[in-house]
């Protein structure tokens, strides 16, 4: 059976949800005739028509606002931000209105905002950022980022069926670099559940997105040195799977917190807080954060390579932590 890429998995997931529920529609810039900047919505216009596959003017705040209004009035919008970076243009709509509707007036907003995020694609400061944290820090939003094709499909389907606004971060580097065989039957991956990608006993790496693959490669290298590394893929950033985080921390007693996002105010700090509050007695070493430095994402190859956490960076920290 043919393997399905991460990008195709997302396309299939949206497609299937549009087949099963008439209230699901997609809206965004260049999504209809053009099929989207990354071709996620390719072919949907022909299948579902222009009422359900909607091109908009170039206006992210307008798109998010329109999606929110449509969600209030009974639809399930799947909005495309052409790049996650531009979600900042709709920030007020997302954080000040959509996120607060249930709390303020009991109004569900079943809306997905898809946002292609992340670097390693030579995108530079406006097309490579990892923008999750402002949304993670906004109560009322859910935030997910799949690392595999299986999860990409299962999580987009779960996000579309969810009754809360979901920020769905797609990693652009993974779009065509990861693929696998997918089940033919309908399935979802539950929001809020992390997954152990590799079992290990000496050190845990807790991570998400593209960094899951970096962690797995680092774990393989470390195994050659006799260090057994467990890799936990968070999959969902809000709500965090606290149980899985604490389980792996208690199991190995040494934890590396890895993300592609910049260090200060990144998710690693929050994870460190959770582990130190609830599993401190189990720890045999310091909680180690690995993240991008606190700079914009640079363009030039040498700079971007230096910016992104690498397999070597992770192996070095794992080795260091193992000595405790």
């Amino acid at each position, binding site marked *: 059976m043919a393997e399905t890429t991460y990008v195709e998995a997302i396309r299939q997931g949206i497609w299937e949800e549009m087949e099963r529920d008439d209230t699901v529609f997609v809206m965004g810039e260049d999504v209809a005739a053009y099929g989207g900047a990354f071709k996620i919505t390719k072919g949907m216009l022909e299948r579902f028509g222009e009422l359900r596959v909607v091109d908009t003017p170039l206006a992210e*705040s307008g798109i998010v606002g*329109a999606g929110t*209004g449509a969600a209030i009035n009974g639809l399930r919008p799947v909005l495309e931000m052409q790049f996650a970076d531009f979600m900042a243009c709709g920030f007020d709509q997302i954080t000040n209105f959509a996120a607060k509707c249930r709390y303020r007036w009991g*109004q569900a907003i079943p809306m997905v905002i898809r946002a292609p995020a992340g670097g390693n694609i030579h995108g530079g400061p406006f097309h490579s950022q990892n923008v999750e944290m402002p949304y993670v820090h906004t109560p009322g939003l859910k935030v997910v980022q799949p690392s595999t094709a299986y999860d990409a499909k299962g999580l987009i389907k779960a996000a579309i069926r969810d009754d809360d606004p979901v920020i769905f971060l797609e990693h652009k580097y993974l779009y065509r670099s990861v693929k696998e065989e997918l089940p033919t039957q309908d399935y979802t991956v539950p929001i809020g559940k992390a997954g152990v990608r590799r079992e290990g006993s000496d050190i845990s790496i807790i991570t998400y997105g593209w960094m899951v693959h970096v962690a797995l490669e680092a774990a393989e290298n470390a195994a050659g040195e006799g260090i057994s590394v467990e890799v936990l893929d968070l999959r969902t950033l809000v709500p965090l799977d606290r149980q899985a985080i604490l389980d792996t921390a208690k199991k190995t007693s040494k934890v590396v917190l890895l993300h592609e996002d910049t260090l200060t105010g990144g998710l690693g700090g929050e994870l460190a807080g959770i582990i130190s509050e609830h599993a401190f007695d189990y720890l045999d070493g310091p909680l180690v954060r690995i993240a991008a430095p606190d700079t914009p994402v640079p363009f030039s190859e040498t700079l971007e390579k230096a910016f992104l956490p690498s397999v070597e960076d992770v192996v070095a920290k794992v080795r260091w932590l193992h000595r405790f």
Partner: protein
Amino acid sequence: MSTPAVAHLQTKFDRDLCERFHYYMLLMRELEDRIENKLYRQGKVVGGCYTGRGQEAIPVGSAILSRPGDWLTPSHRDMAALLIRGITPEEILAQYMGRATGLTKGRDGNMHMGCPERHCVPIISSIGASIPIAGGLAFAMRYRGESNVVFNYSGDGASSRGDWHEGLNMAAVMNLPIVYLCNNNLYAYSTPLDKQMKIADIADRVAGYGIPAEIVNGNDVLAIYEASKRGVEHARAGKGPYFIECKTFRMSGHSAHDPADYVPNQLREEWSRKDPILMLEKYMVENLGADEQDFVDMRKRVLNKISDAVEWALEQPFPDPATLEDDVYAPA
């Protein structure tokens, strides 16, 4: 340039409709007066306290045309729109007092209230943000092939925000059924109109988006009603959005804490002579055989209703702190 104001009324207004206008305008005026000048000063209402004093004709003349399937996105100067949709003075007062039985269960205050069942979206504090929301509500109506429309309310200040422009442009391009009621009350908080924009009429901004716009006397409920009727018919017929600029004046501060001493006395006096309720009463006396006693009786009825509602609201429980973390997300 923009369409000139409509000089002569075309509709023959009957007594019944005018009495409804009068009732809702008076109810809004007196309810807000009770909130701002009594309850707020007594400390029974805390936080921000915004009123639409002098602007009552705008929500009344428009929202009265709404059907159950329509949606409204009122601003903080449009309390009567909520009343017309069936939200009661009791619910409004419980909201202002932060009680558990208020529309937001104490989670938001003052005019920041809405209701899914009665199709009222609560204010988004950055008011222009409601323009794209109106677009989405209208999009869903068209999606299902309904003839419903959205009534959107904002003011001159909102028209400087990016969302306002994004939302109007999208609604025009997508041909969405929305009637925009813009209250141009000459001040956004303390900022006068000439520091808000280089032109005199907001309708001229709208012209750039290809949306028909008209300017009306925002203190004349009959003119608002007629313009809204034109707008609603236009939108229900699938002809797209329609914009009504209502020239009016904010007869209060931005909020209860604001003495508005930046407003020239002469300007305030000039507008106090154009009071929308007095204007309607004059019409009713001259054309519909109403007399002063009718208005006295109506005011009495309204004041009694408000007193009963205040009494009820003061008895309402405050929210239980145990509910603090409820309703951030859907129940699992």
